[in-house]
Every structure is written in structure tokens, then in C-alpha cells.
């Protein structure tokens, strides 16, 4: 491992060479930055990972069933497992998707599940991302570059290869493809995750396209070329639901494809991930995922949620208000590390204001016990190692089978006092190794 650390500078040079960047808008201006990489990988033993794999597959299978149910028969609502209000008032619920059966009944093809490892050695799920989870490209390219910079490290450590992500993605796209080419649909060059869009297109052999390159005719989606249009069978969209089709959702969207939803509804194209998935990764719905697992699969949840309270329920409201200073409060409508408040960071006055807001809008918030999660070592520029909070985004791909990518994006906070690891908040990333004992 020390050898890899000695090559930190070379790895960073390589990352710069390949333009491994992410974008961020500050005051309306687009800035592109190299994504800070730490060469010390998170290591997960094969046995631990097997358990994680089982739990993640179970969770994603239940979430896919939930989505199929919500936009179909709604049995989980009828049976009172999930209150209707949590579904119909969720900003992620799209009435326009009612009754649509996606190809192969898969809704969440690429799921990004955020976990942390507690100091008690237990993995806790923090969040499900079923819309357009990003981040797989970073450990994917970092692994290739680290192997190049420090081959001995990989001779001496048996690490499960993660460089098959592009092939896995292609398999998923091919499985749901309705006839035609695979396309990755990007909002464009100035999107925060543009590097990822272009790199995954290269790795999966899909065509990277923007809205101007795509059109729908007679309920069929086409790629517009200088010659004949080419039919598209699967579109891995990296555009949010609301901007996807201006004739169905936000009419002012300039980055969408008019009538895409018509082609989708007619079953002529697979959209990865399906529109409307936001209803299942809503922070409020998160509370009910263990119940979904029991309901749909008849199994006990393998992975744990962080202890969560819904102020919507009277008991939980009372608990939240009386323990506000110890809890983390999350606005269910926010993402990317925004809308997260730690009670312990607030003044008395701020706590009072927050209490008032929660009482006024109980559905808008969840509260969670602060999990004391394990820190990981980070190599500083001066060569010292320091400990920082880190999470793991695991990627679960659902195609013919539901499989977990044997790696993941480990994000860490660069601020010693912060739990927030998002890149948009200044965090960095590590590779995630699944190690096999020799």
C-alpha cells in the first residue's frame, strides 16, 4: 500500500491528464474542478461485501417492486403499509407515469445506495438514489490509473477487478433495449457530471447525445444523423425527470426531448432510470423501505436504515422536537448534501425556528440519529495521514439479474468537523477495493 501512496502525485497527474473533473455552479457561474482523489482505498473484505451484496440486492429488488406497485395496482397503499400521503405528496411522484409498464418491468436500472459503516461495525443505509445516481466513473478510471502508476500494489494485493462497469452497463441497456442503438442522454457540456456521461458512453459503447441530436417521430425515438435517422432502443438519461420532455413535464425545458414520454408509453424505448422513480428515493419513503422488503419479498431486511423519525407521526414528532439538538434534520425535497442540518450546530434561536417549521410542515422533514460512523485515513499533501468521515455509494445494476458492482464510490469530507461528503460541498473520493484473502 505504501508504494501506491508514494505515487500519489503521479496518480493525480494521470487524473488531470484524463480530465477527471466535476462541475459546480457558484453564483450562476460554471466552474470545473479536478475531483480530489485520495489514494488510500477503502477496503472491504470479500465476506463483508458478500453480506452487503445480499442486502443491497434485496433492497433494490424491493424498491423496484414498490415502483411497479405504485404506478400499477397500489397494493402497498391499500394494505396501509405506506400512507398515501407520502406517495402522492412526494415531489418525485409523477402522475404522468401512472399505468406505464417499463420494459422488463425494471424501474431502477442503476441504483446508487449510500451507506456508512458505523463504529459498531454495522453498515447503515443513509439514502437510496434511484433517479440518476452519479459517481461510478470516478473509481472506475481511478483504478485503471492506480494500476498503471503502482503495478506492484496490485501484484501484492488481491483486489476484485472493477473495470467491468461499462460492460455491466451495456448488458443492462441491451437487456431492456426495444430495438435500436443505446444512447446516453446528457444535458450537455456544462453539467456537473459531464465527465461521467462521456466516460460511461466510451466505456459502454453507447452514443452520447444531447437533446438537439434526438427526436421522436410516430412514437419512436431517433438519433438525428447527417444521414438517415437511427432508431434508439434504450436511452440512459442523465437529465432530471422534470426536464425530460417539455410536452409532458416542465414546458420551458430546453434540454428535453419533445414526446419522449409518448415513445416510452408506447413501449418503443426503454428509459434508464424510469421517470417517476423519485417517489421511491424520497427521504420520507426511506423510512418505509424495511417494511417494503418484508411486504414484497417476505424477507427480513439484511441492511439497516439509520434510526429515522417521521414528524408526520405524532410520536416521532414529539421525539424529534424533544431531541432536536441531537438529531440530524433532512429536508426531503433536497439532495446533494443540501437541506441537511445538524441540531448540535444550531443556536437556541435557530433550534426554535426549526421546531416551528417542522411543526408547520411535518411532511417536509425527517430526523435521524447521528450515526457515529467510522472515519477513514486520508493522505494530506504534507504526507501526514488524517482521519475523515467517509461514506460509500454502492452501485446496483438491474437487468437480467440484479447485481452489485464490486467496488463503489467512497466519498470523504475534507473538513475535519464535517459529516457532509458530497463533491458539491468540497468532498473528495477514494477507490473502493473488494479484497480477497490470499
Amino acid at each position, binding site marked *: 500500500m505504501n508504494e501506491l501512496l508514494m505515487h500519489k502525485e503521479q496518480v493525480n497527474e494521470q487524473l*488531470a*491528464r*484524463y*480530465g477527471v473533473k466535476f462541475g459546480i455552479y457558484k453564483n450562476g457561474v460554471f466552474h470545473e474542478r479536478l475531483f480530489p482523489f485520495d489514494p488510500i482505498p477503502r477496503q472491504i473484505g470479500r465476506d463483508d461485501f458478500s453480506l452487503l451484496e445480499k442486502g443491497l440486492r434485496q433492497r433494490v429488488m424491493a424498491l423496484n417492486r414498490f415502483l411497479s406497485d405504485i404506478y400499477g395496482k397500489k397494493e402497498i397503499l391499500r394494505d396501509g403499509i405506506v400512507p398515501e400521503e407520502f406517495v402522492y405528496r412526494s415531489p418525485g411522484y409523477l402522475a404522468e407515469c401512472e399505468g406505464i409498464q417499463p420494459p422488463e418491468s425494471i424501474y431502477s436500472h442503476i441504483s446508487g445506495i449510500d451507506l456508512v459503516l458505523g463504529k459498531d461495525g454495522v453498515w447503515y443505509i443513509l439514502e437510496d438514489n434511484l433517479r440518476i445516481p452519479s459517481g461510478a466513473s470516478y473509481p472506475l478510471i481511478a483504478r485503471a490509473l492506480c494500476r498503471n502508476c503502482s503495478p506492484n500494489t496490485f501484484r501484492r494485493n488481491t483486489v476484485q477487478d472493477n473495470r467491468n462497469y461499462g460492460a455491466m452497463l451495456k448488458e443492462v441497456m441491451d437487456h431492456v433495449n426495444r430495438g435500436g442503438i443505446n444512447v446516453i442522454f446528457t444535458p450537455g*457540456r456544462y453539467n456537473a457530471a*459531464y465527465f461521467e456521461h*462521456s*466516460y460511461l*458512453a*466510451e466505456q459502454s*459503447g*453507447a*452514443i*452520447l*447525445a*444531447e437533446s*438537439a*441530436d434526438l427526436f421522436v417521430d410516430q412514437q419512436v425515438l431517433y*438519433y*438525428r*444523423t*447527417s*444521414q*438517415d435517422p*437511427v432508431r434508439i432502443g434504450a436511452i440512459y438519461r442523465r437529465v432530471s425527470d422534470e426536464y425530460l420532455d417539455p410536452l409532458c413535464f416542465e414546458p420551458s425545458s430546453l434540454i428535453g426531448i419533445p414526446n419522449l414520454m409518448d415513445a416510452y408509453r408506447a413501449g418503443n424505448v426503454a428509459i434508464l432510470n424510469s421517470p417517476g422513480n423519485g417517489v421511491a428515493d424520497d427521504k420520507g419513503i426511506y423510512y418505509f423501505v424495511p417494511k417494503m422488503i418484508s411486504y414484497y419479498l417476505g424477507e427480513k431486511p439484511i441492511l439497516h436504515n439509520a434510526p429515522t423519525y417521521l414528524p408526520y407521526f405524532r410520536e416521532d414528532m414529539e421525539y424529534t422536537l424533544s431531541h432536536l439538538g441531537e438529531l440530524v434534520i433532512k429536508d426531503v425535497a433536497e439532495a446533494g448534501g443540501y437541506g441537511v442540518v445538524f441540531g448540535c450546530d444550531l443556536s437556541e434561536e435557530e433550534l426554535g425556528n426549526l421546531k416551528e417549521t417542522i411543526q408547520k410542515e411535518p411532511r417536509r422533514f425527517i430526523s435521524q440519529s447521528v450515526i457515529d460512523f467510522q472515519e477513514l485515513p486520508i493522505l494530506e499533501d504534507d504526507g501526514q495521514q488524517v482521519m475523515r468521515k467517509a461514506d460509500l455509494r454502492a452501485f446496483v445494476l438491474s437487468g437480467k439479474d440484479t447485481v452489485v458492482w464490486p467496488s463503489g464510490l467512497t466519498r470523504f469530507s475534507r473538513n475535519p468537523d464535517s459529516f457532509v461528503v458530497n463533491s458539491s460541498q468540497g468532498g473528495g473520493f477514494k477507490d473502493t477495493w473488494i479484497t480477497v484473502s490470499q
Partner: protein
Amino acid sequence: MDYGLSITKISHLFWLGRYAARVDATLRYLIGWYDTMLDGKPIDYQGFCRSLDIPCPYTNPHNFMRRYIFDKKNPDSIRSAAEFMLGNGMVLRENIGSNTLSYLQMAVYAMDNASVSVNPGLGFQRVCDLMMAFTGSCDVYIDHLGIRNMIKCGSMVERISLYLSFGYPDEQLRKAVDELILYTDHLSLLVSMDLNALSILQIQKHLLDQGRGITISRYDMKHADESLFQL
């Protein structure tokens, strides 16, 4: 196997070729000026700007060399051309490949390094080396003939334009026009072309082949060259 490409991508390929050639050709041209300036000899930077039809806000030769080459905020600078080159390349990653793209990224870094170096000439050499590596990588590693030739068409259009502006000898111009016509003949991508402009270039090439000079003004020749592709 060649597949169709969107007009947007074809346009990016063309402009990638143009900007890459601009960075390479103008830098090579100005490397000589650096040497000239060491002996305190004058350089005609105003004439240079006139020939390229760009504004000349530069106050003296040193100011010109600094700002025309390195200034990121100057839209006419070589550094800006390098940024546009990279911008066009970035949206073509899956078409040209990450390895080929990486030479463009490195060329931009090399320009920035040269700007703070005491011997920028060496930095320019590095940029030009990387531009050659990019060209070689396009030749060897891009299987799609249409993609390759579109980049080359862009590159030759730019070179012809610059050669005409800089008053390069006819022989060099003949070779460049020769190549451009060859690439247009083998362009598998369907692109809208100005046939009048193509005819002018073909006739001039024929005359140059016969050892005769260009029969129209360099301005008209440049116009024909730059309006050949309707992108």
C-alpha cells in the same frame, strides 16, 4: 464499421480539427519570433494581426507575445484556441477515445506551464509535440474513417487559411490544398459543402500542380477555403 453522426458532433469534429491546427501552426510560426526578439530585432505584430483580421490592442512586441499567446481572457489568443480545441474534444470522448483526448488536455496544461516558464520556447515545443501526438493518435486509434477525415478536413481548412495569411510559399499551400481535397473525396460522413468553394480549390490545386501560382487573390482563396464546409 462507420456509423452516422449527428450534425452537432460533425461540427465539433470539424472545429476540433480547426482549433488544433490553429494552436499548432500559430505556435510554430511564433517560436521563430521569440528567437528574433532575443537579438532585439523588431517583429511585425501589427501586420500579423492585420493578416489574421483580428484586433491589435497590443502595446509592444513583448505585450503581444504575452497576450496573444497566453492570455486566457483574450478570445483571439492561442490559449483561447487551445481551450476551444479542448472544449470540442471533450464532447467527443466516446468518438475519439479518452487516450486521444488526453493529448489535448495535456497540451492545455503545457501551455499554462509555458506561460510561467523562463524558457517558454521549450514549453511551446512540448505543446507542438503533444499536438503531433494527438494527430498520430487520431490516425492510429480512431477506426471510424468519417471521424478521422472530418478532423483532418477541419485541420487542413485552418492550415490553408493560416498559410494564406502568413504568406507561406506556394509549395506548402499546394500540399495543404492537395490534402484537403483528398480528405473531402474520402469523407464518408454526409456534410453540406459549398460546391463553388470546392471548385475554386480544385482549380487552384490544378494550377499549383502545374507549377503555376494562384490565379485569384489570396483573400478570395481564403474565403473559398473557409466557406467550404457549411458547419
